[in-house]
């Protein structure tokens, strides 16, 4: 059942992305409305997929590689919708839906079988810790996408060569607001994710912090974002610097998320 639902939502994401891309190039308002509708539909179905899988598997589906990537894509969609509900950012949908689609395709290729959980993972902390952390990464990914768009637009305005992107990208201010929003929501989420993780570790493994590679890299990520937020709120770092650092931090975050389990071994195992 969840398999089928996943398939359908993947197709809907594909259609939404296509519509967003058509809107990006043609700039016709009607297409944009349809694209957003498709995206919301896909997102709703995706949410149902996750819920159905929860009942099918009997555990919170943020465990296997397929599940985490799928959940990551879901949280990115969630952040995007939460943001465009409050602010309008022109053509952000094209970039985000493309990224969501990519993640969903990656998830589709990962083995989809449900697994039986090791006793360590069978805990009430699992859904809390995993979903908080992944939501945080979702916001950071959105900040990274916004940063990329910012750099593209800023380059256009600085160099005064008005090509493809100039009219299609939103204003610098809007992108900077996006960055601000994502960081100020994502960072507390990551912090909460780390706290719950360490509480869970105390409960399951006997100590709060074990310098497991995953923990170390998460700490590095956390410090990077902390620095970025600190600079933003005190010195007034914004615009280009904030965009660049958001992208750099995202790269580190993604490494923490995927790279660590490939290059190191730790008790987080190969969940992703």
């Amino acid at each position: 059942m969840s398999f089928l639902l996943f398939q359908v939502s993947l197709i809907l994401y594909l259609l939404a992305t296509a519509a967003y891309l058509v809107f990006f190039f043609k700039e016709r308002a009607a297409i944009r409305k349809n694209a957003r509708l498709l995206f919301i539909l896909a997102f709703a179905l995706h949410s149902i997929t996750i819920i159905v899988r929860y009942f099918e598997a009997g555990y919170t589906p943020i465990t296997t590689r397929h599940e985490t990537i799928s959940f990551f894509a879901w949280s990115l969609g969630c952040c995007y919708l939460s943001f465009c509900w409050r602010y309008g950012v022109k053509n952000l949908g094209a970039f985000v839906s493309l990224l969501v689609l990519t993640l969903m395709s990656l998830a589709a290729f990962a083995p989809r079988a449900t697994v039986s959980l090791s006793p360590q993972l069978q805990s009430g902390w699992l859904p809390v810790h995993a979903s908080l952390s992944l939501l945080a990464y979702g916001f950071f990914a959105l900040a990274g996408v916004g940063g990329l768009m910012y750099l593209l637009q800023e380059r256009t305005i600085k160099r005064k060569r008005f090509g493809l992107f100039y009219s299609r990208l939103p204003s610098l201010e809007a992108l900077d607001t996006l960055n601000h929003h994502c960081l100020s929501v994502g960072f507390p989420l990551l912090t909460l994710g780390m706290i719950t993780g360490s509480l869970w570790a105390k409960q399951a493994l006997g100590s709060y912090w074990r310098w497991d590679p995953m923990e170390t890299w998460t700490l590095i990520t956390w410090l990077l974002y902390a620095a970025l937020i600190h600079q933003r709120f005190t010195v007034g770092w914004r615009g280009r610097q904030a965009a660049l650092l958001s992208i750099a931090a995202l790269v580190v975050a993604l490494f923490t998320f995927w790279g660590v389990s490939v290059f190191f071994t730790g008790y987080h195992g190969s969940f992703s």
Partner: protein
Amino acid sequence: MAVFPDTIALIGVNHKTASLDLRERLACTAGYEGPLAALSRLESLKEYYLLSTCNRVEIAFVGDDVRRGRTEILAALFAPRVKAAELEPHVYQYEQSRAVEHLFQVAASLDSMVVGEAQILGQMKEAYRIAAKTGGTGLVLNKLLHKSFSVAKRVRTETRIGASAVSISYAAVVLGRKIFGDLTNKRVLLIGAGEMAELAAEHLLNQGVASVVVANRTLERAVSLARRFRGSAIALAELQGQLQHVDVIISSTGASELILRKEDVRRVMRGRRNRPLFFIDIAVPRDLDPAINELDNVYLYDIDDLQGVIELNRADREREAVKAGRIIAEEVLKFERWLENMASTPTIIQLRNLMEDIVRSEVDKTAGRIGATSTLQQEALEKMALAIASKMLYHPLKYLKAEDHCLSLEERIHTVRTVFDLDEAADQAQPGGPSHA
């Protein structure tokens, strides 16, 4: 046009003939009412209209003695402030079709400092409104000014002459939106007070910009400009401090050196907590250090960059100017035609008067001879005579009024006047009546 008895003339100074300093002293800063009242006392002017902007002071008038009119106007308007000897070399004077053409050019903004800016039309309309209200304009100037407004509109719609002037303001707004997203609550600083800068500031104000600050070499001018935008004025020395508080800076001073350097702006950015700054430099030579653009969160556009936003090249503009010139020449011809037709009116009136005089004297004579004493009989006689007279006049009048003749109107008027011996009659009857050269 020679048949029209009075001359349409235009005298004035503009940014091409007079320095800003002189123009400022000539400008009617206290409103039009006073100067118009002074003009109304001049007997040599039959109709008059006065326009005063920061770039021009012009008087168009109708009268039969242009030289006298000119001397009297200059004395009446400017005598206490500016001596005639100082003023004379700067004054231009146009008559008849050249005056009409000039007025059309001014209205269409072809004579402006920034060719194509639309402000001048509004200023002209306002000047005309006041002149008309105080009774300064009559048949000819009413027609001429209304015509010039429609010519301006035609030039604007049929050519893209306004595009380059608009482009600066337009580009400033479009770029401003791409940088700030929303222009409301943003503050604009004008450095120097060029026409183009004012235009851009006005455009930005229309987009909801919070306030305008004006910095100028002479504080007086800054204050007057700031009043127009309901903003505040500062001295040039305070510039650095102001950069903290504004977001868009439009610079257009006549300074030959840079006013702001990269270092000046870099220092300010920390205090601004890196809120973006958008500089627009429309001065030639440039006011702002091009290196300013290298700073983060600072964007600098000069006049060429802004032109690039709109992409209207030079060749385009020249072609449009030729087109606008043609439209104006066409409209001048049309106006001349109207004026000529106006010229036939006195002849027609005179002819009618002549006929009525003859009818009346003949009716009196006949009535006495046949003993028709009752008013009823007299009226019947008069009615008959008038009917015969107007039937006789029908063809001569039609000949005068008709448009499609192989003879020019002037010649036709001449023929009719000769045939009916109107000039002799006029000389005898009313010595001050219209005569033609």
